């Protein structure tokens, strides 16, 4: 199991899913129509490190964060 958390304005509680890679996470999240619109513009971190590779393996207990568009300052 891995945890997926949704940061900032997405306003959704964390979920736990089975996933071997981020591609699996993508497939699972797209099942939720309300999330689908966010995915286009969200960046992703695994265990608080920003990632850019869909195929990197996930490990049991990993935490995937979904980061919507930002505007600090």
């Amino acid at each position, binding site marked *: 199991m891995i945890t997926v958390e949704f940061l900032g304005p997405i306003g959704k509680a964390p979920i736990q899913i089975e996933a071997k890679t981020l591609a699996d996470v993508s497939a699972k999240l797209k099942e939720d129509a309300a999330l689908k619109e966010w995915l286009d513009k969200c*960046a*992703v971190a695994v265990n608080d490190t920003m990632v850019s590779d869909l195929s990197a393996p996930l490990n049991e207990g990993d935490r995937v964060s979904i980061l919507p*568009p*930002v505007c*600090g300052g």
Partner: protein
Amino acid sequence: MELYHGPLDVKSIFNRWLDEHAASNYGAFIPFVGIIREEDDIEALSFDIYEPILQKWFDAWQEKAMQRGAIVKMAHAIGDVPVHTSSYVSAVFSPKRRVALELIEEFVEDFKANAPIWKYDVKKGKRIYAGDRSTPMEGAGLLK
């Protein structure tokens, strides 16, 4: 890096940073102060921050600054920040003017684009995500 609930006490942050480096022999100090403008009938802006990734972003910048002989500083507000008060103060200390001027610009612009902070307008007590003024982070769309 410093995070505060509510508006920043700009003067005390600024004065403390100056004191900390009173003898560090930097020749240039450039702070950037962001203040909430009264516009579009907002009462305040409000901020969510994801601290672990913000800290990493900041640490990477500190490393970059140090390679140029400089240091960066940063303070940001969490939650509501009323109009005419400050949500954000950053700064560069550097031996030389040129490096300081270049760094403060790069630092502030990269902060805007890549710091994991989410902004909301506060109108009649309601928080409204400022999506149209927000920027997708580097690598956005990976899961689409």
